[in-house]
């Protein structure tokens, strides 16, 4: 044993220095942690902020309201579909803002490019329904062409060089005139929520994709939840503990981590090529997503069942209930809130899944709303993928807006799960 003696000043200084260094290291370490969290949360804010910034303008549209004289000289009552209504409307608009067409009609063509094709279809529908309208005037309203809309939203600037923007100076002048005459009104974009995909951005909407997603998700829920809950009940409550059930358990845990695109390959090989399920239908999509969600539903259900205390089971058994009655009358109902929370979360995940659906042919252009499980359809995330690939700039804005719709649905589902948990959660 060395003799204890008071530390020399030297030693004190060394200790103080080292302590300082150690405390500095401590502060640095804590700072790294803060930075890590700031990076993650900063990215979240950036991501959501950027999407809202890109997408919010979709919900505003600029509509043109105008009167059209249905010139009998231009429309054949016997063949109303043969007339070029778009051009007719464009010519009358030019006249209205006092611009004379040139001899080649190129100005009315340029004007036509500012108008949505929807105007012409509206006239055609009205004329077909009532040929007596020919020779009279009609008041119509439709969104402007997407590029014209972007001009009013300030996303196409007049200051940009003319050849770099889709609209010419002349067209911009006309748009200003139309606006000054009060023909252009801005309002809430109902088209985006009430129509389906279209090749024209101003007529494209998400309704078809929303309905397709809903159909598919209902099928996924109808398959994955009962099968998953029953499977978990068997594994947790009835299965003997042996090598087979161990194998099933390992298998389920691994399935939960299989890349989703592999489920798409499975769907393509088994459901489409072997069982002849129609391609790009909510049916095949729902089947694939059901298989994909099954492991997560099973895992969630098992942990909910585990949380039910054994005393409940013992009480029921002691009163003479059979094992089946114990499980189905007591344990499962008590575990139900947890089961439903897990199920909703895995469905929310399925709602945002894209890759396996690309494999089963959901990338096709579907202009209508699907009316059956077997009809061709698209779903929200795939619609986002399709629009992201489109070259028109107006589609980028709609992609961000479609993401907002998708996120809104996912937030609703997560909120439902949280509320369910809050409302029914039981601590034993």
């Amino acid at each position, binding site marked *: 044993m060395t003799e204890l003696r008071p530390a020399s000043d030297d030693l004190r200084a060394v200790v103080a220095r080292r302590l300082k260094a150690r405390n500095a290291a401590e502060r640095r370490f*804590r700072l790294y942690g803060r930075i890590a969290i700031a990076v993650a949360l900063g990215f979240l804010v950036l991501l959501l902020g950027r999407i809202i910034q890109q997408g919010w303008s979709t919900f505003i549209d600029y509509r043109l309201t105008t009167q059209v004289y249905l010139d009998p000289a231009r429309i054949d009552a016997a063949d109303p579909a043969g007339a070029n209504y778009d051009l007719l409307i464009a010519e009358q608009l030019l006249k209205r803002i006092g611009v004379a067409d040139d001899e080649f009609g190129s100005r009315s063509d340029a004007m036509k490019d500012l108008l949505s094709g929807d105007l012409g279809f509206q006239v055609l529908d009205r004329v077909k329904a009532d040929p007596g309208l020919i020779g009279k005037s009609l008041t119509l309203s439709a969104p402007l062409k997407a590029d014209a809309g972007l001009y009013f939203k300030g996303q196409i600037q007049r200051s940009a060089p003319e050849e770099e923007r889709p609209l010419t100076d002349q067209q911009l002048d006309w748009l200003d005139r139309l606006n000054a005459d009060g023909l252009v009104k801005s309002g809430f974009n109902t088209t985006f929520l009430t129509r389906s995909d279209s090749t024209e951005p101003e007529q494209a909407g998400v309704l078809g994709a929303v309905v397709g997603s809903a159909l598919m998700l209902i099928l996924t829920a109808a398959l994955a939840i009962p099968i998953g809950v029953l499977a978990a009940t068997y594994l947790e409550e009835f299965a003997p503990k042996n090598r087979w059930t161990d194998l099933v358990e390992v298998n389920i845990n691994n399935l939960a981590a299989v*890349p989703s695109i592999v489920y798409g390959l499975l769907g393509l090989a088994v459901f489409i090529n072997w069982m002849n399920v129609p391609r790009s239908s909510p049916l095949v999509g729902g089947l694939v997503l059901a298989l994909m969600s099954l492991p997560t539903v*099973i895992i969630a259900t098992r942990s909910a069942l585990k949380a039910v205390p054994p005393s409940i089971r013992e009480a029921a058994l002691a009163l003479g209930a059979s094992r089946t009655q114990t499980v189905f009358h007591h344990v499962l109902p008590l575990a139900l809130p947890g089961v439903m929370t897990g199920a909703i979360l895995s469905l929310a995940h399925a709602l945002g899944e894209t*890759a396996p659906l690309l494999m089963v042919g959901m990338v096709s252009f579907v202009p209508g709303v699907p009316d059956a499980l077997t009809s061709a359809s698209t779903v929200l*995330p795939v619609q986002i993928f399709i629009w992201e690939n489109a070259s028109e700039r107006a589609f980028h804005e709609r992609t*961000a807006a479609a993401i907002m719709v998708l996120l809104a649905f996912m937030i609703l589902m997560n909120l439902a799960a949280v509320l369910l948990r809050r409302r029914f959660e039981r601590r034993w």
Partner: protein
Amino acid sequence: MLTFIALLVLVAFSGAVYALARRRAGALALAAASPINSRPVHHGAYAAVWTAVPAALVLLFTGLLGDRVEETLVSARLPEAVRAMEAAERQVFLDDAISLARGKARSETPYPADLQVALDQAAGEVRALESRMRAFSLAAAAVLALAGAAWGLSRVRAPFRAREGVERWLQALLLACSVTAVFTTVGIVASLVWESWRFFQSVPPQAFLFGLEWDPQSAMYADQVVSEGAFGAIPLFAGTFLIMLIAMLVAAPVGLFAAIYLSEYASARTRAIVKPLLEVLAGVPTVVYGFFAALTVGPLFRAGFNAIGAQLVGGPLNELGLYLGEVQNQMALVAGAVMGVMLIPFVSSLSDDIINAVPQSLRDGSLAMGATRSETVKKVVLPAALPGVMAAMLLAVSRAVGETMIVTMAAGLQAKTTLNPLETVTTVTVQIVTLLTGDQEFDSPRTLSAFGLGLTLFAVTLMLNVVALRIVQKYREQYD
């Protein structure tokens, strides 16, 4: 449609059987001298199950597999001329015959006169076969339902243990449900192996796994000989590896430090706020990350590198400047970085669990010896949690390798073997998507190669997952 109506009738019928059996059992319970073993409900359920289930199984099987059986039977009886045709043409012929038999429009394929006759004949056969099969399945279902009802009703007697019978059925149902998960695995493995085997008929596995050139376009045409180099997957593996590496360089430190901060430093309130927010980040669909990477991060990085390049041009680093000036949107760095952010919550929540599983006594011991918190974390907690953290990283790697949408939208299509993060690379998943979207021909090696890639992907991720889950499980038990 017919199957559906038959199923509805069956449900109604078994409902009636249920009510009848239940009434009888109820009457029995009142009248019988000895107490009745099972409750009337169980007698009803027992009879109903025996009525409905066997018949429903027959209906479902003929409904699902009828088309397959029909095709096999008809194709066995096709005339010589048709059987001599190519597989794809024969399939079209068969489909046409079936469409004609069902009164639908057939394909536009022109047939010579003799084949036209054969087609009509085949259609007639299909029609006859279909009506026979329909009649058979309906008759079989009806017989089974009636027999089941008679059996169930005949067992309504006081000592009969109907409840146990019902519970046995229920057990069978539960077992069948849990076997579905196993069947999914079998289905995945079987379909991947089967289609890959077809692919390896035309491209030898060693050429696929070790080939240095990936160019599936060149093998698109039927008469073109598949050159061995066209399906070499090494550039795809390299691209996948590069993007995975970048993603892990982002996700591993950030996720780990976030987990350490949350579990060791943060107050309960901070945890309650930050953890759900991280979960939000985990819940964002990957297609959204892809959109963000392609339209925001990509152009941003490109502009940044181009600006740096413009500064360097003319200086001592002229070459580098010129290179940076030509960097494209679709670089590996963009996809990798965004994927890394996607993985942060995954890594942090797994590591958080594992760090929390380290017993408090270890920390207390270290702190009592005068170590600072960070020293405790670095010297005690992390070494103790190391296997678990490694497993979490392996799971994250498996996620990164299998991730599809971000790379499809933000990485490119050029197959390049490089470790330069500023180059455009392509990955296994991107190629699967590219090969399988759009028109497909199911006999070309081009389409089938996607399944070869899928099999490789499945094998690699499965290996990572098995190892990681093993470690996690062992580790959890260690401190329990």
